[in-house]
């Protein structure tokens, strides 16, 4: 098995010939769209007059809420989000009307001729205010174990505080987009950049009052998503679909960067209000924590995100007495949404801040403190899932070894003694990341596999390809089962006709779910082929047992006599002639998971991914600049399906979180206007932000519970490692000013303000 087969679409991408929606030839008669976005965060619409804009030559139609044939509702779990608000504007940048015109420029000019009158309402932007006013989408959620009150009152030490995390912009390089094309029989074909074909279908069908089988959703691939197209794409797909429905012409929605950044939801800011009790050795006895999130104007995925945050409020540590309460707050910001980690990074940041406070209070070594508290196999989480196959203690030891921890600490102390204007710091963070959608029913996937007469294969799964290379991995699975060389397998676009009812590609589960569904499909075909293979081998004088037949490298043979082979493609031709079906539908649902929110108990996760990271940074006290000197990561991948992909995911996740922690500052003014809505002011990391040195060790765990072929999910867990940089910067600052308060993100400004 080639452990690191190249990106299955790598050649396409590198030659610029891969297909992305809307980066393609305009369709005849196609209409372009521009939107009137709300200039205020909260208001009642008094008048929306489109009569002037419609007179412009080239303007085909100006669409508002009253044009919607079905239900003006794009919410899913909680149905609180209109496509266009009819009365109440809920956030700045909310689309209020859509112009359809023969050119973008005309549409743009016509938008300026729509006249909006409104009456402003008091907006809410901050968690504190929303919480005080009881602006929650649903009542508080709770997970509780042990007796927190008692344990807190009996603890040797207690600390309490409030910790906050800020937002983050997805900045997928491909902005939101969709092309809608009318088909026969009222069909609408949507080329939409979404992570969830099923959701788009369901929402558009309701909006247009059309049966789901008339809405066809096709996704060639995404130019990055990171959660921002899980729900975030739905509204734009719905816009295109509506325009197409009303005009019977192809319609393209393509957001410019600023439009995208202004109007779309981002990572949820969180606030943790906590009280912790611990003993003199640093063993945590009790944690009472409230997690509050800023969900923005509509519920979107806020509830599920809050849940995952609550499930990760313990990060990697066993705490016997815990109470976790969670409230998702409604504010007048664009609806915040999924973003890599889905609430977990926020919760883990808060908990790691608490650990830092404990370490400071007791003057404990950070790694020792973490070792004392780390989960061990057999421990029970606050929601009563048993932690099994937990190798955290080994991982922390490996990390100490790889980084030469004791010596590194000494070197840093020495450096700090010798340098007046420059200081170093370090930090360590372990992670235990739960894998599975916490919304249990989403843990299912299908695959459609065809083997064609020449032995090549076509595979469609529920998954959407967005750079995580679920395609390469699913093809690897099929290749493993049927021995088809990877270059003979095409992984197709996601398409609701080929694979219906697809769960979103999210929660790091893409390969687990779809790899297993692909395996199921491939195995069905394999089983059908076996008798034929046996008889064909027999014709060549090999009288083998069916169990011994191998499919490998495009050939089929018996393990007893591997020299005598039949070509896979010959087998397939013969199978076709023998009327053996060569297409199969595979299906998979994750076993053994469930959760009951009424009691806050259950096993929401199929397994956990474990790992830990250490970062060493240097800061300049006069300029506030920092440099990440060294990063060590020990990460459990299980038996990786493709080490290069997994390495890329770890490196990429680290940098993306690093950006959140250091440079991705997104200030907002008092009217709810995000101030950094373009790349000239919102700064994501560049190649210059790489750590001077990064060493990543991937360890195979041999887990029984790992997923497809012993591999583990990789997309989100390593995101947590980037947090080490923030804490290491704080550590460096504390070496000169122990009580300094460092804001998140640790920009040069935050660092200098903390120091002065």
């Amino acid at each position, binding site marked *: 098995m080639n452990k690191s087969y190249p990106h299955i679409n790598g050649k396409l*991408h*590198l030659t610029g010939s891969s297909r992305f929606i809307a980066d393609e030839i305009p369709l005849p008669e196609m209409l372009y769209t521009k939107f009137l976005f709300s200039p205020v965060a909260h208001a009642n619409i008094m008048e929306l007059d489109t009569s002037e804009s419609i007179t412009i*030559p080239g303007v085909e139609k100006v669409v508002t809420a009253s044009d919607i044939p079905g239900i003006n509702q794009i919410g899913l779990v909680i149905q609180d989000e209109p496509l266009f608000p009819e009365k109440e504007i809920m956030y700045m940048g909310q689309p209020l009307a859509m112009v359809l015109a023969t050119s973008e420029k005309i549409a743009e000019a016509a938008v300026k001729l729509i006249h909006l009158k409104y009456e402003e309402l008091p907006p809410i932007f901050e968690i504190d205010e929303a919480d005080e006013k009881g602006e929650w989408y649903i009542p508080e959620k709770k997970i509780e174990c042990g007796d927190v009150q008692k344990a807190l009152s009996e603890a040797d030490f207690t600390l309490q505080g409030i910790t906050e995390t800020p937002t983050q912009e997805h900045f997928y390089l491909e902005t939101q987009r969709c092309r809608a094309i009318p088909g026969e029989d009222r069909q609408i074909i949507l080329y939409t950049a979404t992570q969830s074909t099923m959701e788009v279908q369901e929402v558009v069908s309701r909006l247009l009052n059309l049966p789901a089988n008339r809405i066809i959703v096709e996704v060639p*691939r*995404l*130019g990055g998503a990171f959660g921002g197209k899980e729900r975030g794409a739905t509204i734009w797909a719905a816009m295109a679909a509506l325009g197409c429905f009303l005009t019977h012409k192809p319609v393209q929605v393509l957001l410019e960067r600023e439009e995208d950044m202004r109007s779309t939801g981002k990572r949820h800011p969180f606030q943790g209000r906590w009280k912790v009790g611990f003993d003199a050795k640093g063993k945590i006895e009790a944690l009472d924590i409230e997690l509050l999130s800023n969900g923005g104007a509509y519920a979107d995925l806020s509830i599920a995100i809050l849940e995952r945050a609550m499930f990760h409020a313990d990060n990697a540590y066993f705490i016997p007495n815990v109470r976790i309460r969670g409230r998702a707050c409604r504010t007048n910001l664009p609806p915040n949404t999924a973003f890599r980690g889905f609430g977990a990074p926020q919760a883990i940041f808060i908990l790691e801040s608490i650990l830092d406070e404990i370490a400071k209070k007791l003057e404990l070594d950070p790694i020792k403190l973490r070792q004392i508290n780390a989960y061990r196999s057999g421990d029970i989480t606050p929601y009563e899932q048993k932690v099994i196959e937990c190798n955290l203690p080994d991982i922390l030891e490996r990390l100490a070894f790889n980084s030469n921890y004791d010596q590194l600490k000494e070197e840093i102390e020495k450096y700090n003694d010798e340098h007046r204007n420059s200081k170093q710091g370090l930090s360590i963070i372990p992670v235990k990341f739960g894998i599975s959608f916490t919304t249990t029913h989403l843990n299912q996937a299908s695959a459609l596999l065809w083997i064609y007469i020449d032995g090549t294969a076509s595979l469609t799964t529920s998954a959407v390809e967005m750079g995580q290379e679920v395609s390469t991995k699913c093809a690897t699975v099929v290749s493993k089962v049927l021995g088809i060389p990877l270059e003979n397998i095409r992984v197709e676009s996601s398409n609701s006709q080929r694979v219906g009812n697809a769960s979103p590609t999210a929660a790091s589960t893409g390969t687990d779910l779809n790899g297993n569904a692909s395996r199921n499909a491939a195995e069905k075909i394999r089983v059908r082929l076996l008798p034929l293979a046996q008889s064909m081998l027999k014709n060549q004088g090999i009288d083998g047992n069916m169990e011994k037949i191998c499919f490998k490298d495009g050939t089929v043979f018996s393990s007893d006599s591997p020299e005598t082979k039949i070509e896979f493609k010959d087998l397939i031709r013969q199978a076709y002639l023998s009327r053996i079906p060569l297409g199969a539908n595979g299906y998979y649902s994750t076993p053994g998971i469930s959760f009951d929110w009424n009691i806050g108990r259950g096993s929401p996760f199929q397994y956990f991914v474990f790992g830990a990271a250490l970062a060493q940074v240097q800061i300049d006290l006069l300029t506030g600049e920092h440099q990440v000197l060294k990063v060590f990561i020990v990460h459990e991948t299980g038996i990786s399906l493709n080490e290069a992909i997994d390495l890329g995911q770890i490196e990429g996740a680290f940098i993306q979180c690093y950006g959140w922690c250091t440079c991705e500052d997104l200030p907002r003014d008092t009217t709810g206007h995000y101030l950094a809505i373009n790349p000239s002011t919102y700064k994501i990391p560049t190649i210059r932000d790489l750590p001077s040195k990064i060493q990543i060790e991937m360890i195979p765990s041999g887990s029984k519970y790992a997923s497809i072929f012993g591999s583990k999910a990789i997309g989100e867990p390593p995101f947590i490692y980037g947090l080490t940089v923030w804490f290491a910067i704080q550590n460096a600052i504390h070496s000169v000013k122990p009580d300094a308060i460092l804001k998140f993100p640790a920009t040069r400004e935050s660092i200098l303000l903390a120091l002065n």
Partner: protein
Amino acid sequence: MENHNANDLIKSLQRIYYFNKITFWLNGELITAEIPPAQTTLEFLHNNQHLYGTKCSCNEGDCGACTVVIAQVKEGNIVYEAINSCLYTAAKLHGKHLITIEGLGTLEQLHPIQQVMLENHSLQCGYCSPGFVMSLFALLANISHPDEEEILSALEGNLCRCSSYQSILRAAKELSENFTFNDIVPAWCRDIEKQLFSFKDASKLIEKSGNLFYPCTHYFIPQKLSELTDILANTPESVFIAGGTDLMVRMNVQKEEMPVLIDLSELQELKQITYTSRGIVIGAVVTYSDILHSGIIKTDLLSLYELVEKIASKQIRNFATLAGNIANASPIGDTLPLLSVLDASLTLFSSTGIRELPLRDFFLDYRKTRLNYQELIKEIVIPLPTQDAFIRTYKATKRKAVDISAVVSAVKIETESGKIKEAKLAFGGVATIPKLSHKFSELLIGKPSEEINPIEIAEIVSAEFNPISDVRGSKEYRQILIRNQVLNYLQEYVQGDTNE
């Protein structure tokens, strides 16, 4: 023209436009195209050529997804330069060779850059990949075996949100080690090099009308100042464009209309960097990259060289000009403080003649200058500083690379027989225009360096300014930056070190 009512808009649909009829090579093929006024190269590739391999992610020069490479003759040599096609107007392509991702490699036969990136797994979603390939192409077509710094400098203008940077860097290092110019620049590219030298055709303007709608009606590209004078005489409301890295952002993002644009970048008289008795003279259309390639600047104005390296990205530096930075008159234009302390002056040109102005007097208010109607900057004159002058600049940004400053400063201290003879300190980002510190000069001139108290001076200078809060930094932060930058400079000046 801003259209505030339907009638205006309908009228402007009947405007007459002048398209630029230009001739150039696109991926090895000579083509002639009619370019709508101020159309960008990216729009041309998408709308006119239906080539979609070049991606648009920001349309304002900040992401590099739209990177393409231009081969042209400069100072008698062929250079391959990566540029942001979203800001580079297509009319500028006349007589040049535009190389896009479609030109490099095929699925059957990858270009070595693509092959090595594939093997190193240097991509995830792939949206940024064409841009990275093109940036690497330009790098390796110009330098054999670039070192890590040269690689980073070539790639810092390409964003990858999947953050495949580590594996891209691995690929770049491998390419640098194992490949040379001959492997990188395909034969069909080299064939065209000769033709670039001999190219002589002139571009033309072609009249078009009838339900067209563009934000610009004329895009002139004069070749000589005399030609420019004629154009100015006949076109009252015109705006100059050099690189367009400020101006095109205003058109693309702020959606400003520029009815008449005059592109200065082909003016032969303004392309040189020369020594004169007044100092070093930099023509108005000299780009940042030209400055970095100029031996004169590197040897005699190292401070400018080092600052320019930190401005924008490689792609932007390849067509943005120093004069544009000055004329743009942004309070955070990075070069303004340095040019102020170096006592630079400007030669201004208009139909009525030429005048000189010290740079310090050029700025009036926020984005307001002393440029008269139809007057342009012809050149920048920088007196040579004394050999041992202490000159430093510092840019405070949110991100290490490709970022606009919150505060940028420059200092020049000249010492004579143990005493400070001249001391100048200037800041950008602390007021509506770049500002000199009066206190700094007052406190230092005449003092022996041993008597300087850096902390005290830093505090005094900091109190001299009253910066404001904006998206790039709060007032408090800027105040600290002012103090610390002064402190840093003086500590280094006094002790000859910074960080010990």
